[in-house]
C-alpha cells in the first residue's frame, strides 16, 4: 500500500482506537492468551501477552496496527515460542465467510482491478482496455445477499451447537468478521481440551461431511431390512428424517421409494443434503488450535469495518453497525465502478474521479483498493 493511503487509513484507525475504548476489550482469560498484530506494509508481531484492557489500548494507540489478533488457545506461557508455550486448551472457533458459499451474487459485486495500471472494471476481460495487461486482482464489495446467506449459516451452526452438542446459548458469541462473514466463538470447558484431529471430526459433523448410508439405516446388502430414521429423532438422523419425509403421513410411501432406489441413490441423496443442510464453515479455522484470530472490537484492514458482536443477528446490519470510523470529509481519488452503501448513505459509482467522502467511506475504498489518497 502506498504511503499516502497508509497515512490516511492509520489516522482514521488511530482516531477510532482513541475514541472507542468502550468497544475494545481483551477477551476472558486474557493473560493465558497469545496476542499478535500487524502494521501496514509490515510483518506480523506475535507471541505477545496483553494482560488487560489498559495494556491493549496502550498498544493500539502506540502501534496503530492494521489488524489485531488474539489466540483462541490458552497457554501456560503465551509469550514463549510456540513449542514452549504449553498449550492448555482452546475455545472452539468457526469462520463463516460469504466468499466460500459459492453464491450466484458474487459476480455482481466483484470488481476486477488491473494489476499493472490499477484501473477497475466489473466484468472480467482477457486484457486491460487501458494498458493491455492480462493480470487482474479482484475486490469484492459489500452485498446484502452475502450477509443474509452468511447469517443463515450462522443460524444452522448455532442450532447444531445447542441441540446436538449441548452448548448453551450464553457460551456462543457471534461476531461480524469485519469484512464478509461471521466469526463464532464457543467457550465451553468440555470442548476446550479437544485437539486438532478431534476438532476436524467435529467440523465434519457440522458440515455433514463423510456421512454413510448405513448410519441412516440404508444397507448395501439385504436392503429389505433397511429402516430410516424417524421424525422424532435428534441430531442429523432427525434432521435427515425431516428433510426426506416432510410430514408423518408421507413417511411410509417415501421410505419404500428410498429403499427401492437402493444404496447408491441414497448416497447421492446424502451428498445433495450436505450441500444445503451442512454448515459451510471454513474447516481449517476450526481445526487450528494455535490460530490467532481477529480480536473483537478491532478494525479489519480489508474493509475498515470493525469486528463486532451481533446481539441480534436477524436485524444486524454490518454496513451501518460495524462502520465506526469518523465521518469528517476527506478527498480521495476514487475508482469504484459499483455503488456502495454505508451508514445508509450511497456512494459512487466513481470513475477515477476526485471526490470528497466521509472518512469511513474513503477508508473503505482505500482498503478495498478502489481509490487512492491525494
Amino acid at each position, binding site marked *: 500500500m502506498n504511503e499516502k493511503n497508509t497515512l490516511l487509513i492509520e489516522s482514521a484507525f488511530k482516531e477510532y482506537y482513541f475514541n472507542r475504548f468502550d468497544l475494545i476489550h481483551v477477551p476472558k482469560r486474557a493473560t493465558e492468551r497469545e496476542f499478535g498484530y500487524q502494521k501496514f506494509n509490515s510483518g506480523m508481531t506475535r507471541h505477545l501477552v496483553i494482560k488487560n484492557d489498559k495494556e491493549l489500548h496502550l498498544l493500539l494507540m502506540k502501534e496503530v496496527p492494521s489488524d489485531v489478533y488474539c489466540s483462541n488457545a490458552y497457554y501456560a506461557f503465551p509469550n514463549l515460542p510456540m513449542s514452549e508455550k504449553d498449550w492448555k486448551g482452546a475455545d472452539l472457533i468457526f469462520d463463516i465467510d460469504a466468499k466460500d458459499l459459492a453464491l450466484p451474487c458474487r459476480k455482481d459485486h466483484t470488481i476486477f482491478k488491473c494489476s499493472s495500471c490499477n484501473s477497475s472494471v466489473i466484468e472480467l476481460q482477457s486484457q486491460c482496455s487501458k494498458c493491455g495487461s492480462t493480470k487482474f486482482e479482484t475486490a469484492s464489495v459489500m452485498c446484502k445477499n452475502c450477509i443474509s446467506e452468511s447469517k443463515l449459516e450462522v443460524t444452522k451452526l448455532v442450532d447444531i451447537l445447542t441441540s446436538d452438542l449441548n452448548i448453551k446459548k450464553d457460551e456462543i458469541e457471534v461476531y461480524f468478521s469485519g469484512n464478509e462473514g461471521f466469526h463464532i466463538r464457543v467457550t465451553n470447558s468440555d470442548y476446550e481440551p479437544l485437539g*486438532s484431529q478431534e476438532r476436524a471430526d467435529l467440523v465434519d459433523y457440522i458440515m455433514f461431511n*463423510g456421512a*454413510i448410508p*448405513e*448410519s441412516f439405516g440404508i444397507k448395501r446388502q439385504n436392503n429389505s431390512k433397511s429402516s430410516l430414521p424417524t421424525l422424532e429423532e435428534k441430531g442429523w438422523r432427525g434432521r435427515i428424517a425431516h428433510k426426506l419425509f416432510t410430514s408423518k403421513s408421507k413417511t411410509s410411501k417415501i421410505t419404500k421409494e428410498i429403499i427401492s432406489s437402493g444404496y447408491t441413490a441414497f448416497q447421492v441423496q446424502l451428498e445433495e443434503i450436505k450441500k444445503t443442510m451442512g454448515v459451510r464453515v471454513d474447516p481449517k479455522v476450526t481445526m487450528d488450535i494455535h490460530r490467532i484470530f481477529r480480536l473483537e472490537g478491532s478494525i479489519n484492514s480489508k474493509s475498515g469495518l470493525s469486528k463486532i458482536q451481533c446481539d441480534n443477528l436477524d436485524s444486524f446490519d454490518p454496513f451501518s453497525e460495524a462502520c465506526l470510523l469518523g465521518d469528517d470529509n476527506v478527498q480521495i481519488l476514487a475508482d469504484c465502478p459499483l455503488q456502495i452503501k454505508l451508514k445508509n448513505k450511497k456512494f459512487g459509482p466513481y470513475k477515477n474521479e476526485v471526490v470528497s467522502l466521509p472518512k469511513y467511506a474513503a477508508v473503505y475504498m482505500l482498503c478495498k483498493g478502489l481509490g487512492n489518497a491525494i
Partner: protein
Amino acid sequence: MLKIGIKDLAKYPFLTEAGEYLANTGLSLEQLSHPDWKPIVEKAYGRIVVASSGQIYGSDLESLDNDSELLSFIVAIILLKSAGIATLIRRFSLAEARRSERFLQQDLWASRDKKNLELPLKIIQDLFAVTVSIDNDEFVIKVPDYLQRAVHFHEKEWKLVNRRVANGFVYLSAHETVRLIRAELGEYINGKIQSVNIQSIPQGFKQRVEDLVILAKKFSDTTYVSSEYPPCVKHGIEVLEKGENLPHSGRFLLATYLLSKGQTVDQIAPLFKNAPDYNERTTKYQLEHISGSSGSGTKYQCPSCEKLRSESLCFATSDCDGIINPIQFGKKRKNK
C-alpha cells in the same frame, strides 16, 4: 459402596482392589515360590506364552478357581518384571486388555440388571475418567470424550457424523463402548506393570524367568529395512518386527505408504505377522479395504506429515527435507 468380589477380580485382576485382596490373604512372594504353588506359576507362565503369541488367554470363570485366575495374573507380572523385557510386557498388556474387554462387554451387556452394570461403568470411570451412562438400552458418553478416542479409528462408522448424537451425547452399543477404550486399557495395564517393584526374584520363579528371556529372543530378530523408507515408516516396521504393538494409525500409515509405492496386499500382509493381535484374515481384509479393492472402493491415501505429527508417529530427520507427506520422501533429494 460397590462391593468387588473375587470373581470380579478374576475378570479384572488389574484393579487396585486385587492388591488389597492379596494383602488380606496374607500370602507373601516367598510363599508363592513354594512348590505347593507351582501350578500357579505354571499357569502364569502359560498366560504370558499365550499373550506373546498374540492370542487371548481364555478363562472359564464358571468352572475355574477364581483365586488362581487372580494369583496367576499377579505372578505373571512378577515373572515379566523379573525378565524385564518390554516387548513381552507390551504383548501381555494388550492381550490382557483384550481378555478383560470381553468381560467388560459381557457385563455391560447385562445392562438390564442394574447390579451387574455398576462395576464395568465404575472401571471405565475410575480408570479412564470417562462417564458412561445408560439411556434406555444404550450407552451414552459425552461428545468430547467420544471424539478424543474415536479419532484414532479410521473406519467411517466411527466418524461423529455417522453416530447417533443428541444433547451432547453419543449413543453406543456395549461392544462399541468397550472398543473405544481398548487402547487405554492396554496402556493402563502396561503402566501398572511398569510401576511394580521387584526386590529379588524368588527361587521358585527363576526357571520360568529364564524361559521368558529365551521366549523373547524370537521377537528380536530384525529383518532388512530399506533405507529408502521415510523414518516414520521405518519406525513402524521396526516396532512390528520387535513384536510390539503398533497403533492402528501406525498400521494405516504402513499400509497406505507401501501400497502407494506399488506393493501388493500379499506383499504387505506378512509385515504384520509379528503384531501381538495378528489375524491373517482380518489383516488381508483391512489391507484390501485400504487399497480400494474391496468395500466402498475408496483407495485411502497416505496420511500427511502433519497428521502423523499429531498422532506422535512422526520421527522426522533432516532427510525429510520439509516434505508434507511421507510419499514425497527421497524425491526432493533426487531433484537436487
